[in-house]
């Protein structure tokens, strides 16, 4: 704001001292917050802050002073000790936008970059281009329909979304799940972890120029999708894991199909590693790129392979086991450097471990029910409906009204391929959730992108971004 009155503001009242933009001191946090809650009634005179903002928020990076103080408070101030300390003239800096429609931003993420030549000085991820209002939609669907909704959040790992939602509902209901249903859930989720990591290696390869990697990754992923399709009826968005168990028992011959996958994978992994492990371009573009230290990762709430690549031993399957995962043996691969290459190694390690879990499930799959016998959530068997009027009514009511869940709230988290996927569910005793809040792992990981990207080169953005494996459906929901 300049002191010279301009044509447009000349006939208006001089802005009062409280007007935040006129305040000479830097805008403090609470002022900023108050400003966000100011309302402006359409038709009245526009306050200045309305004119500065667009419907996508203020189109600026934070002021540098704000950002530094924020980073200092979090203890995550990154000292660039390898760059010359010269103060560069403001004129030398340029701001460019990458996305939301960009071939390598992994969905509709937009990055605002402040460049100084080839070096990135600041990054601001802008999200919301895929906001689907799923948390709100969850409130209008019954618990029975809930899986259909949540499965579409993180669309590369639909089983994990369903599992997390179902576990939360079951916790509130206080019902037990038969061992076979639990084993099926583990089988599906661990296969899903592999297929998700395969897609990751395909896109990571594609983004840094290893185009053949893309073809290979999709080739093997198709094996998994075919198995999912024969078991659940859909290639993606399965709606298979539901409160109370799973939707259907595994089909005949599933053992052979899983066996075929387990046989094909080691060879495929060896093929990928042959392509990547000693490929100088791949190594150059991943080693020492997009580094995040363990402290920074923890401060920003990074989870999943990105956290473990920094060397932090945190895997919810070990820390807060769910669905009987504690009965299987597996290790948690850890990295040392927290760079893109370590994320690659950690993911490949996880693929091997998951295949090991799948092998164990295959060998120890218990017999029994695939869903709970609790008539409160499970409809009566088809035969009973023919015989008894009560069973028919029960069936009808279950599918029209859904089942009621006792009031209460619960937080349930699972280790999705991207990190801690958590759902906070509040029930008011009716048949649909009062509130569902989702802690998407990609959301927290995207927030840490500025730490990883600051002071690196433009060309590394794509590599770093891909290595975090954000799924925008999970970020925006």
């Amino acid at each position, binding site marked *: 704001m300049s002191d010279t009155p301009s044509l447009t503001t000349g006939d208006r009242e001089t802005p009062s001292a409280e007007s935040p933009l006129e305040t000479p001191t830097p805008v403090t946090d609470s002022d900023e917050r108050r400003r966000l809650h100011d309302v402006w009634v359409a038709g009245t005179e526009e306050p200045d802050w309305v004119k500065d903002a667009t419907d996508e928020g203020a189109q600026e990076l934070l002021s540098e002073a704000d950002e530094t103080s924020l980073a200092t408070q979090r203890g995550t101030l990154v000292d660039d000790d390898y760059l010359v300390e010269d103060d560069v003239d403001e004129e030398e800096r340029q701001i460019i936008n990458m996305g939301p429609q960009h071939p390598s931003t992994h*969905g509709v993420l937009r990055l605002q970059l402040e460049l100084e030549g080839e070096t990135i000085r600041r990054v601001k991820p802008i999200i919301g281009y895929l906001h*689907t*209002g799923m948390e709100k*939609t969850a409130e209008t669907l019954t618990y029975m329909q809930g899986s*259909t909704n949540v499965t579409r959040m993180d669309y590369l790992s639909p089983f994990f979304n369903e599992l997390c939602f179902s576990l939360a509902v079951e916790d509130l209901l206080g019902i037990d799940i038969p061992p076979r249903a639990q084993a099926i859930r583990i089988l599906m989720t661990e296969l899903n972890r592999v297929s998700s990591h395969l897609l990751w290696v395909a896109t990571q390869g594609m983004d840094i120029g290893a185009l053949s990697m893309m073809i*290979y990754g999709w080739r093997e992923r198709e094996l998994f999708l075919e198995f999912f399709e024969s078991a659940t009826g859909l290639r993606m968005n399965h709606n298979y894991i539901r409160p109370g168990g799973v939707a259907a028992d595994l089909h005949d011959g599933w053992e052979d199909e899983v066996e075929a996958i387990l046989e094909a994978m080691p060879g495929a992994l060896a093929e990928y590693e042959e392509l990547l492990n000693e490929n100088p371009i791949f190594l150059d573009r991943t080693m020492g790129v997009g580094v995040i230290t363990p402290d920074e990762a923890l401060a920003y709430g990074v989870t999943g392979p990105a956290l473990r690549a920094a060397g932090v031993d945190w895997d919810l399957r070990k820390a807060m086991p769910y669905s009987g995962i504690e009965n299987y043996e597996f290790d948690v691969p850890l990295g040392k450097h927290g760079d893109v290459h370590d994320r690659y190694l950690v993911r490949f390690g996880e693929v091997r471990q998951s295949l090991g879990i799948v092998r164990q499930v295959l060998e120890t799959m218990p017999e029994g029910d695939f869903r709970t016998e609790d008539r409160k959530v499970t409809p009566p068997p088809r035969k009973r409906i023919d015989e008894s009027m009560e069973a028919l009514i029960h069936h009808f009511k279950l599918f029209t009204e859904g089942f009621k869940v006792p009031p209460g709230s619960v937080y349930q988290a699972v280790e999705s391929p991207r990190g801690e996927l958590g759902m906070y569910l509040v029930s008011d005793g009716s048949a649909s959730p009062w509130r569902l809040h989702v802690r998407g792992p990609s959301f927290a990981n995207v927030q840490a992108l500025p730490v990883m990207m600051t002071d690196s080169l433009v060309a590394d953005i794509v590599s770093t971004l891909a290595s975090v494996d954000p799924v925008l459906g999970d970020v925006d929901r």
Partner: protein
Amino acid sequence: MVSEAAPPGFLTTNLDKAVNWVRTQSMWPVSFGLACCAIEMMATGAAHNDLARFGMEVFRASPRQADLMIVAGRLSQKMAPVLRQVYDQMAEPKWVISMGACASSGGMFNNYALVQGVDQVVPVDVYVPGCPPGPQSLMHGILTLQDQIMAGEIKR
């Protein structure tokens, strides 16, 4: 198309057919992936299903070099202006395929956040049903569009 009067090795046809044939056989889609459907769109282009068979494996990053837009996924209110801008940047003639329930009608998300069908923002030629449509469905949609183009006039 083959005429008796023409010397051997020659084909005669009319301009409409020739131009339309050329258009259908090298349609380049602009990559406009939005959500889950985009993953299936990529799967369609990848090894197993091989979209190259229809001359459209080159997903273009720049709308200027593309003549088909496959809107794959749910379109949020915030993304709608971006979609329209990308569409406007494409050179004529151009076509739009709306892939999936969300793109065609808002799908299961009838709420404040989603545009209830991309046909509110851009003109759609072919709707592909499914959630997500499998690669076969998408290919069927593409072939339907090719038929439409073959049957149509070259000026549009």
